[in-house]
């Protein structure tokens, strides 16, 4: 073979190899385009039937694997500066160890026994079953928000969930919990609690919320962030406000969370109650509780403070209420917009069902609207939260001083009647402090409202301290 022939063949071979490579790349691109097109057209395949009694999220997960995968991630430990639980499989660290004033504030209440940082949704049932607070008998009401409990309500009410729900406060926690597990519904909050199994539409199921939002709608409290309530109020009001019928899609994206992330009464004397009859502000709720009477006609309280004897209130976790006072609610930004922002998967977008702090998801949660760098967003939030934390500690200092003053007055022989004003102010101060301390955003959901509440808390505690000093002087 001549040299030129050899060279020609070599060139031919190289060109051939190039052709092969290009064809391989083009085919790879083709399959990639095909995959993206499939992603866009195939929303889901309903392989298994799901209905109102399918509480096991794993069954739903067969049909909606992307959402289910994200939901399962709520078992992962996450942590921000002021919230959460990082690391081990053990129970999260104790809140009352970190802030000892919490223990004194809750003296006489089960939260002084055990009060820990929250973990993800996946742990809500086991954490509740394991808490040391069960040393004190707990009510069946607690399961309203810690389990996929609707089938149990329906069974107790012979098909009527509302009637079943109204029986559960009188049942011991263990009894209802056993029933839940025996019926095969021992799951934390799951798909069916927020989604209609036929249409996948988000919906609310929790009786406590449905009653509470009706109370709010029937009141004349301003709700500029909930336009459907205004619309309902302007109608004939023949039928009670029904969020599943009346609310907008945007509102539903907050209502589903408001089924549990709220203030409520949850012990055994009457059914679980969302206190929204006067509105959603801290004072509206305070007035609701103050106007409420037990069956014997005495004024409502959550527990008697072991040290001072005051009949005080315990705030739960009023995220929905505090958010309602903030700029985000006012601007139409729902809970899910930040806590379950849209996440892109190939050519489709789905809601991020790994519900967590937006601080761990800044690009999706915040940057969609706030076109500024992530570090700047983190810094702004840190500023809001550390300011709130400082105010909270100051208000707590005032409360501790007030408790000292009451203690001294009692030692000096002051009577309950002489201390009445001081104890009333303790109830107020403690309610305000707890409203912000137990709320899970360190003030972020409504920074100015939180500052206003803590300012009023410190003021009430200091006034109470003065009243206690006066009582002490009178007694001496």
């Amino acid at each position, binding site marked *: 073979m001549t040299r030129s022939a050899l060279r020609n063949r070599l060139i031919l071979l190289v060109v051939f190899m190039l*052709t092969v490579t290009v*064809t391989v790349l*083009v085919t790879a691109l083709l399959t990639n385009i*095909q995959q993206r097109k499939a992603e866009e057209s195939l929303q889901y395949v309903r392989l298994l039937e799901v209905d109102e009694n399918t509480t096991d999220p794993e069954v739903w997960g067969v049909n909606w694997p992307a959402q289910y995968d994200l939901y399962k991630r709520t078992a992962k430990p996450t942590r921000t500066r002021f919230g959460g639980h990082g690391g081990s499989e053990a129970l999260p660290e104790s809140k009352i160890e970190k802030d000892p004033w919490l223990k004194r504030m809750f003296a006489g209440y089960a939260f002084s026994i055990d009060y820990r940082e929250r973990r993800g949704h996946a742990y809500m049932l086991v954490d509740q079953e394991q808490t040391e607070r069960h040393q004190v008998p707990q009510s069946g009401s607690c399961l309203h928000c810690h389990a996929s409990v609707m089938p149990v309500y329906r069974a107790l009410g012979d098909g009527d969930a509302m009637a079943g729900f109204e029986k559960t406060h009188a049942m011991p926690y263990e009894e209802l919990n056993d029933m839940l597990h025996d019926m095969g519904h021992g799951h934390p909050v799951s798909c069916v609690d927020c989604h209609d199994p036929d249409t996948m539409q988000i919906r609310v199921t929790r009786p406590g919320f449905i009653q509470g939002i009706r109370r709010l709608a029937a009141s004349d409290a301003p709700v500029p962030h909930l336009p459907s309530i205004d619309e309902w109020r302007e109608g004939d009001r023949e039928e009670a406000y029904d969020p599943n019928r009346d609310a907008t899609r945007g509102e539903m994206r907050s209502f589903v969370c408001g089924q549990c992330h709220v203030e409520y009464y949850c012990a055994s004397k009457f059914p679980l109650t969302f206190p929204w009859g006067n509105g959603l502000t801290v004072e509206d709720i305070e007035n609701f509780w103050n106007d409420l009477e037990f069956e014997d006609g005495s004024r409502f309280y959550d527990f008697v403070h072991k040290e001072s004897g005051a009949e005080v209130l315990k705030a739960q976790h009023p995220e929905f209420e505090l958010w309602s006072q903030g700029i985000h609610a006012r601007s139409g930004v729902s809970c899910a917009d930040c806590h379950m922002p849209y996440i892109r998967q190939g050519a489709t*977008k789905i809601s991020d069902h790994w519900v967590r702090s937006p601080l761990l998801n800044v*690009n999706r949660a915040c940057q969609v*609207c*706030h076109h500024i760098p992530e570090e700047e967003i983190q810094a702004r939030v840190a500023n809001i939260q550390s300011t709130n934390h400082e105010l909270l500690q100051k208000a707590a200092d005032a409360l501790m001083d007030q408790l000292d003053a009451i203690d001294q007055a009692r030692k000096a022989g002051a009577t309950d009647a002489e201390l009445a004003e001081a104890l009333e102010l303790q109830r107020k101060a403690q309610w305000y402090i707890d409203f912000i301390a137990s709320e899970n955003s360190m003030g972020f959901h409504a920074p100015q409202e939180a500052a206003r509440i803590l300012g009023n808390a410190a003021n009430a505690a200091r006034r109470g301290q003065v009243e206690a000093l006066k009582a002490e002087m009178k007694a001496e």
Partner: protein
Amino acid sequence: MNRRRRLSLLAVVFTVALGIMAGTGVFTFHYGEGFSYFSKDPAACANCHIMQPQYDSWQKASHHTVATCVDCHLPHEFVAKYIAKAENGYWHSKGFTFQDFHEPIRIREKNVEVLQENCLSCHQQMVHELAPGATKLLDEVNCIHCHASVGHGPPGGLGGPLREFELEETTP
């Protein structure tokens, strides 16, 4: 003779390979809606669905009656337009194929300049005293700094709730 036959066999294999390449190429181009990218149809910009929120929000924003995607986002001169199409097309295809871009998506510096030029090309009569001369200075005031919602509505396209005053107007 033998050698010639071998050569022609090679030529056939080679031609077939080339044909396969060309065929897959043409099909892929067609399947990937390649020709739509030469049009100015706004729907083409949302072919890959990444731009769906931008496409949706544009339809609700004030400029949708007077300007489509290319009117604001591409230079108006023929050559510059096709260079920009090619360049943006490259980045978009690379990003979408390898899924390696910043989210939420951000406009590039270069495209901000194009955008500003295009604001001026329609509104220059109105703003020539506000924005004289060059548009590429760093301290130049960008129209969209204030008029952020003309193209795609409020940020995020979240569509806030109806305000009370809006309700008053819409309910009897």
